[in-house]
C-alpha cells in the first residue's frame, strides 16, 4: 500500500488504523454474508424489525453489564432478576388490576430494590460480585417460581405495546412511516451538529484540527447508514415502523454513553475498574461506584424483563434462562477486557448486534439447532480473538475512536479523564488516548 494511503487511513481513524473497527467490520461482514445466503432476507424490512424486537432486551442488559465489567465485576443474576420483575409486573396487572403505567413503575422499583440489595453486598460487605450475583440467580429464580407458581401469565395489550409496539403513523399521505423518517432525519442532524461542534471545540482549545475530509467522510458514511436504516424501518408492513423497544434501547444507549464518557461518575467507573487502589487513593469513593453500578444493573434488568414480556405477551417460568450469558457474550465481543477498565457502551451494542444477526441469519437459513450452537460458539470465540489480536495492550476499544471523532465520547482506558486528544498527525508520538 502506498504511504499516502496508509497515512490517510491513520488520519481517518485517529492514529491507530482500521483494526480499531474490527468488530464493526465483523458485523458488516456477517450482515452481508447472511444477506447473500438468505437471498436478501436479512436486510428485509420485516426481518430488521424482528431482530430489533427480539434482541433489544439483550442490548439493554449489555448496557448495564458493560458498566459492571468495566468496574471489574460481573453479574450472573440478570436473567433471574428480569424474570422475577416480569412475573411481578404481569401478576400486578392481572391480579391487582394495576394500569400498565403503574405496573411498569412497580417493576422499576422492584428492580431498584434488587439492585440495591446486590449492591449492598458487593460494595459494603465486599463479597465478590460473582458470588453475590450467583446467589441472586438462585434466589430470584426461586422467587419467580414462587410468585408465578411456574405458570405463564399473559399481559394485556395496553402493556404489550412497550415490547411489540411501533411508532404511530400520522398518516400525512407519505407512503412510508412518517415518524420513523422524522426520527432518522433528527439522528442525521444530530450527528452533523456533534461533528461540527467537535471541530469548533478543537479550534477553540487551540488544538490542531483534523483535515476536513475525515469529518466529511465520517458524516457521509454514518449518514448513509442512518438513512438506509430509516428507509428499512419506515417502509415495512403497514402498521410497523421503528419498534418502541428500539426507541427505549436507543434512549438508554445514548444516555449511558453520555454518562460513561462525559460525567465524573462514568470516569470513576473506569478508574475503579482499571486500578481500584489507585482510584481510591485519588479520592474516588469506590464503595459508591460499586453500589451504583450494581443498582443500575438491577434497574436495567427490570427494564429488559419488562420489554421482553411485552414482546412475548406473557411472562413465563422459562424467562431469563441464559440471558446473562448472552449479555456477557455481547459485552466481550464488543471489546471489553476481562480484567476490567476497558469497554464502551457502543462496543457492547455492536457486540450484541453481531450475536443477534448471527443467530437470526442461522434461523432464517433453517440450520438445525446443534449446528447453530457450534457455529455461535465458534464465532464468539473467533470474533473476540480477532479483536484481542488487533488491539494493542491497554488501548480503548474501536468505537471509542469512532465516537471520539464525533465529539461525543472520550472512552479512555486508564486513569482519570483526559480533556484533550493528542493530535493523530504524528503517529509516532504516544498519544494519551
Amino acid at each position, binding site marked *: 500500500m502506498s504511504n499516502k494511503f496508509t497515512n490517510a487511513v491513520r488520519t481517518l481513524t485517529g492514529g491507530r488504523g482500521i483494526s480499531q473497527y474490527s468488530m464493526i467490520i465483523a458485523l458488516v461482514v456477517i450482515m452481508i454474508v447472511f444477506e447473500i445466503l*438468505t437471498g436478501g*432476507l436479512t436486510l*428485509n424490512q*420485516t*426481518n430488521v424489525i*424482528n431482530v430489533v*424486537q*427480539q434482541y433489544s432486551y439483550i442490548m439493554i442488559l449489555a448496557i448495564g453489564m458493560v458498566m459492571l465489567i468495566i468496574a471489574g465485576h460481573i453479574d450472573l443474576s440478570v436473567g433471574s432478576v428480569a424474570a422475577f420483575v416480569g412475573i411481578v409486573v404481569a401478576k400486578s396487572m392481572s391480579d391487582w388490576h394495576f394500569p400498565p403505567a403503574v405496573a411498569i413503575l412497580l417493576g422499576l422499583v422492584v428492580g431498584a430494590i434488587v439492585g440495591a440489595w446486590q449492591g449492598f453486598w458487593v460494595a459494603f460487605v465486599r463479597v465478590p460480585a460473582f458470588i453475590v450475583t450467583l446467589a441472586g*440467580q*438462585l434466589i430470584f*429464580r*426461586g422467587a419467580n*417460581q414462587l410468585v408465578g*407458581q*411456574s*405458570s*405463564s*401469565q*399473559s399481559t394485556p395489550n395496553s402493556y404489550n405495546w412497550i415490547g*411489540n409496539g411501533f411508532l404511530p403513523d400520522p398518516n400525512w399521505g407519505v407512503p412510508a412511516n412518517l415518524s420513523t423518517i422524522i426520527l432518522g432525519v433528527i439522528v442525521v442532524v444530530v450527528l452533523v451538529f456533534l461533528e461540527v461542534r467537535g471541530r469548533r471545540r478543537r479550534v477553540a482549545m487551540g488544538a490542531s484540527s483534523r483535515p476536513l475530509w475525515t469529518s466529511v467522510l465520517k458524516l457521509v458514511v454514518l449518514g448513509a447508514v442512518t438513512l438506509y436504516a430509516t428507509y428499512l424501518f419506515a417502509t415495512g*408492513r403497514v*402498521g410497523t415502523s421503528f419498534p418502541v423497544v428500539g426507541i427505549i434501547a436507543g434512549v438508554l444507549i445514548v444516555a449511558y454513553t453520555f454518562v460513561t464518557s462525559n460525567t465524573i461518575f462514568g470516569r470513576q467507573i473506569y478508574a475503579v475498574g482499571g486500578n481500584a487502589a489507585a482510584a481510591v487513593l485519588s479520592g474516588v469513593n469506590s464503595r459508591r461506584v460499586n453500589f451504583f453500578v450494581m443498582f443500575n444493573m438491577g434497574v436495567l434488568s427490570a427494564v429488559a424483563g419488562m420489554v*421482553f414480556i411485552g414482546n*412475548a*405477551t*406473557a411472562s*413465563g*417460568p*422459562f*424467562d431469563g*434462562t441464559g440471558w446473562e450469558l448472552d449479555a456477557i457474550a455481547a459485552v466481550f465481543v464488543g471489546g471489553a477486557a476481562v480484567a476490567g477498565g476497558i469497554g464502551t457502551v457502543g462496543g457492547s451494542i455492536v457486540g450484541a448486534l453481531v450475536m443477534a444477526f448471527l443467530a*437470526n441469519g442461522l*434461523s*432464517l437459513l*433453517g440450520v*438445525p*439447532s*446443534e449446528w447453530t450452537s457450534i457455529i455461535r460458539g465458534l464465532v464468539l470465540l473467533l470474533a473476540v480473538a480477532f479483536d484481542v489480536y488487533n488491539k494493542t495492550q491497554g488501548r480503548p476499544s474501536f468505537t471509542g475512536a469512532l465516537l471520539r471523532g464525533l465529539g461525543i465520547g472520550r472512552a479512555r482506558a486508564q486513569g482519570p479523564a483526559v480533556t484533550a486528544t493528542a493530535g493523530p498527525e504524528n503517529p509516532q508520538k504516544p498519544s494519551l488516548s
Partner: protein
Amino acid sequence: MRKSLFIGIAAATIAVTALAGCSSARSGGDSSTKIAKGDTVGVSLPAKTSQNWVLAQQSFKSALTKAGFKADVQYAAANNTVSDQQNQIEAMITKGDKVIIIAAQDGSQLGTQVADAKKAGITVIAWDRNILNTKNVDYYVAFNNYLVGQLQGQALLDGMKAAHPDKTTFNIELFAGASTDANATVFFNGAMSVLKPKIDDGTLKVLSGQTTFQQVQTDNWDPKNSQARMSNLITSTYSNGAELDGVLSPNDTLGRSIITAIKAAGLPNPIVTGQDSETDSIPLIMEGIQYSTIYKNTDEEAQGAVKVVSALAAGKEPAGVDKNDKTNAYNGTITVPYVALKPILVTKANAVEAYANNPTLEALAKKG
C-alpha cells in the same frame, strides 16, 4: 524426590483401593424388597417450570396419602436440574424409600442412580417420561405419548379441513419440543405418522422445507425460541402472500408463543394444536384462536403410579401392565412394563364435557 514420589503413588493406590472397597461393600439383593402400607414413597419431579408439574405435587401427595403411604415429593432445582435430580434420587435411596417414582428431567442421565436404587432393592417407576438405556426400571406409567402425537396430527388435519372445506392442499409448519426430552421425539413421531403420508402425497405442504426433528425442535421447550422461529419463518416464507393454514405445536406454551408471533406479523390465525390443557390456553380454544389441546389428567396419571405401588404392596401383579409395548416403552435396553393412560383430545366442541371432572378447567371452558 524419587522417594517421595514413590510414597505418594503408594498412598494414592491405597486410598483408591480403599474407596473402591467401600463402594462395592454395599450388598443387597437384586430383587426388590417388600413394600408395605405406611412406607415412604419417594417422588422425584423435574424442574418446576410448567403448570402440569405444579399440579403433579398435589396429585401425588393426595393419591399416596389416600392409598396409605407416606409421600416424599421433591422438585429438582431450576439450575443444574439434571444433577440436582440425581442427588435427590441418591438421597431418597439413602433415606430408605421403598419405591421411587421418577419423572426424569433427562431420562438418559439417570443410569447410575437407578442402578444404585435396584441394588438397594428399591422399586423404580418411571413416570411421564421414560428412563433410557438401562434395565433398572420396573414400570413406566405415562399417557400414551405416541397417541398424543397422533391426536395432534389428526386434529391439525381435521381443523384445517373444517376451516377451509374447499381447499385441497394446505400449507403447514412443524414445531417440536426439546431434543433433550425423550417425549418430544415421541410426540413428533406420532404426529408425523399421521402427517407424513399427507406430505408425501402432496395434500400438505411444508413451505419452509423444515421437516426433520432437529430442524423443528425448540431448545428447552422455551417459548422464546419458538416465537423467534415462527417470526423468522414468516419473514422467510410467508411474507410474499403465501398462506399458512396450520401449525403443529407440541404443547400449549409453545402454541401460544407461535400465535403471538403470527399475530404480531398481522397474518390470519391458522390452526394451532397444543397439549397440557393449560389455563391460559383454554380461553383461547373457546375463542377459536387455538384449535386444540390434549387433556392429560395429572391426577389420573399419579393415580396410575400409585395403583402400581398399592398392587405391589398387596403382593399382587399390577393391573393393566403391557410388557411388550415396543413403540412406547422401549428404552434402548429393555421394553419396560408399561401402564398406558389414555389422553383426550380437546377442542371447542368437547371442552366442557372433557373437563367435567376438573372444576377449574370446566369453569374456564364454560366461560368461553
